């Protein structure tokens, strides 16, 4: 009998590679639906049925082309997309009692083959003559850059970090995507014909005014870099960390900002960042890892699969608890939380947590990890006429991704407030289409 605790050992890869015969057998199960529900469920508009059919005919190149045309980050999305909530959930096979098609893994299969070649199999589609600067080398920026380069425009991506890929590189869990994969994918995509400039923070190392002088259009895909604070007393005590700092340090293989071994860790939040951070704490040797969430399981933004994974690995979840004070005195020794109940639905449609008329409860701990959301590091609007920010998000036209300043477009987390890679890709693509039209002199 194994005496292992439930969380021990690395988490198995979420979507492992497929061998050729596996892919063929799986692809052959696809019904090739008309107006396929899986395609409709894909925010980036991947023609799922067609890319899978091309696997069955042995046209793997064509399959990759079809994927990349819809979603330049098809390789990343194959690994990190919540497919069980999107395409795979829409599959009709379960309606007849059969398992859904493993769309994510099939997509990975096609892209693994395609990425064995030095460059993407996309032939230049146009002779665009525009010059475009992309601010941010995350999924949104790379998607926009890939598409504009494909149309023949001259594109430079400026990214503040050492390595490209954005949160795909610095934040997403190891069992979904290894940290070195997104940078490799970014370089591979750049061979469509765009330039990647790492370590350049626009606004600090290079001004927006300078960009405007050198480029026709600027795409903002800067994500949300600042963690939202709990705004409770004691928050700045030693022992309170941001989930993203913790995860990023781990992803880069460097020393973690805090020691987790044998500590009792509380993770504040209810989204996938919270679940990832809670898992990471256990992996780094924490004695206990507990998610503290102010509503109930039904309102948790973390997907069911993530919730069952954290439970399976031994993470505790405390529902209906809202932080009121970090307890010291010198460094964290506990967190005072207010027991809550659910009230009326709020703007998000989820029921609002309301404090119960009882005294706060003390949760003893050594470390507190903040994972309650991200916002813009700084508002790029400062000094750029027409780039408006509302509630921490850049405001754009829904059809084109254009800001009120016609030379600025935006997309990804900095526009949608933080969703998934596939949404960032879709918004980068949306902007690229409009930018291309604008640069051709057609109204966006």
């Amino acid at each position: 009998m194994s005496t292992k605790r439930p969380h021990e050992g690395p988490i198995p890869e979420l979507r492992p590679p497929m061998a050729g015969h596996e892919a063929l057998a799986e692809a052959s199960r696809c019904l090739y639906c008309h107006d396929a529900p899986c395609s409709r469920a894909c925010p980036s508009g991947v023609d799922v049925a067609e890319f899978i059919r091309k696997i069955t005919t042995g046209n793997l190149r064509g399959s990759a082309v079809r994927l990349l045309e819809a979603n330049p980050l098809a390789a990343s999305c194959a690994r990190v997309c919540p497919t069980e909530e999107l395409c795979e959930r829409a599959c009709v096979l379960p309606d007849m009692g059969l398992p859904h098609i493993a769309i994510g893994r099939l997509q990975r299969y096609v892209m693994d083959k395609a990425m064995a070649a030095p460059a993407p199999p996309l032939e230049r589609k146009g002779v665009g003559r525009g010059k475009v600067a992309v601010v941010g080398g995350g999924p949104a920026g790379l998607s926009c850059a890939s598409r504009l380069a494909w149309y023949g425009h001259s594109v430079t991506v400026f990214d503040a970090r050492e390595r490209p890929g954005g949160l795909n590189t610095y934040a997403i869990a190891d069992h979904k995507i290894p940290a070195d994969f997104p940078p490799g994918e970014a370089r591979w995509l750049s061979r469509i014909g765009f330039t990647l400039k790492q370590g350049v923070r626009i606004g600090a190392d290079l001004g927006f005014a300078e960009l405007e002088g050198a480029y026709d259009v600027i795409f903002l895909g800067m994500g949300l870099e600042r963690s939202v604070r709990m705004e409770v007393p004691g928050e700045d005590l030693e022992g309170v960390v941001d989930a993203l700092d913790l995860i990023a340090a781990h992803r880069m293989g460097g020393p973690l900002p805090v020691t987790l071994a044998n500590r009792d860790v509380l993770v504040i939040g209810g989204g996938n960042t919270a679940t990832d951070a809670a898992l990471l704490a256990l992996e780094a040797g924490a004695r206990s890892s507990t998610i503290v969430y102010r509503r109930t399981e039904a309102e948790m933004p973390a997907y069911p699969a993530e919730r069952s994974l954290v439970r399976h690995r031994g993470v505790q979840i405390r529902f209906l608890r809202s932080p009121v004070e970090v307890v010291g005195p010198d460094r964290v020794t506990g967190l005072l939380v207010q027991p809550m109940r659910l009230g009326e639905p709020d703007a998000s449609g989820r029921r609002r947590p309301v404090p119960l008329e009882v005294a706060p409860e003390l949760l003893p701990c050594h470390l507190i990890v903040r994972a309650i959301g991200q916002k813009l590091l700084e508002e790029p609007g400062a000094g750029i006429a027409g780039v408006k920010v509302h509630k921490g998000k850049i405001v754009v036209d829904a059809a084109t991704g254009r800001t009120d300043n016609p030379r600025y477009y935006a997309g990804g987390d900095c526009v949608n407030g933080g969703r998934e890679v596939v949404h960032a890709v879709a918004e980068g693509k949306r902007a690229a289409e409009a930018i291309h039209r604008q640069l051709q002199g057609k109204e966006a």
Partner: protein
Amino acid sequence: MADLSVNFAGVYSPNPFWLASAPPTNTGEQIMRAFDMGWGGAVWKSLSDPIINVSSRLAGTDAGARRMAGLSNIELSTDRSLEVNFKEMREVKRRYPKHAVIASVMMPAERPLWVDLVKRTLDTGCDALELNFGCPHGMPERGMGAAIGQHPELAEQITSWVKEVSHVPVLVKLTPNVTDVAFVARAARDGGADALVLVNTITSIGGVDLDTFTPRPSVSGRSSRSGYCGPAIKPIALFQVSRVAQSGANLPISGIGGIETWRDAAEFILLGSTTVQVCTSVMHYGYRIIDDLCDGLSNYLDEKGLPNVDALCGLALPKIGAWEELDLNYKVVASIDQETCIGCGNCYVACRDGGHQAIIAARHEGRTRVEVDESRCVGCNLCSLICPVHDCITMEDRSPDLPPRSWRDVLAGKGKTAEVTDGT
């Protein structure tokens, strides 16, 4: 990027993929939609004297979970009026001048009937005529279709009548329901045909309902012989195409029969087809399969470094010859990859009961372990064909160090053959 456009007996087509004369080409509306989706040409549903079709006209043959690996039909020619067909055909040709619009026609073996139909059809501006000498059901009973295609003299005669009045290329569509298709192919050529099209459907019974004893498709409790098509007939059609390509008829060929993927199409082209036609797969999956047909073929040509479809045409033909020319000194044996073998034992059973008892099975660490006894293996391929694991059983070359020797050489007392060891 390879050039997919072809010139088929003087008919230009943006790609080699045509819709075969059948339900997918019933109406102008359908054909225009198909052209919009990328089909290069369409052979209009056969025009003839007015007929009435039965309801319940199709029966499918499944292969396990795979539906409609074969399709049997008892549909006749168009059941819409000729006038409506002509009007639509004219419209399609006007709106799609660069696509191949071919009119399929069939009539009983009477000159005035053919001449009249052909003249009226040509008036539409269609790019070519396809003479349906192939329909194996319903029409032969009226002296049409296969009733003509099974008689070389009739086929030649009618082709020549049509040629006399046609200013566009005349394609003759052949039936596979003959002993040797080469005879009719040459007869059509002698009648003046500009190109040959094959195959039409193969005579079939589409199955029998075990409860009612009625063959399929059942028309109110009775059935009739049907025409079989779809993926299941591909090997037959491939042979027929190669046979015609090597018949000396020397005409361009439009290949048909079970084409579902670009790979199937490439095989027909390698055996001498310039264009290919598709019916069943479109009935199964819709016009949308054209996307991968074109894309896949184009990628394949690029991969092979071939500039266009013509460069692929017929490349496999020189490799088909008489059996007695094959090298008897060539020897392969099965080799099982123990790493990937899952121990299902199917190769063992197949070889034991349907082969040459060359696979040994034993229990090994709780599962079946199979091994090849090379001294008994004749290299028939059977095990490699049934093995469920991709590339697990491969055939390895074990040819002796001897010059090739054919059966002809044996008869002529030439050459040397390695000792045959069959293990007994």
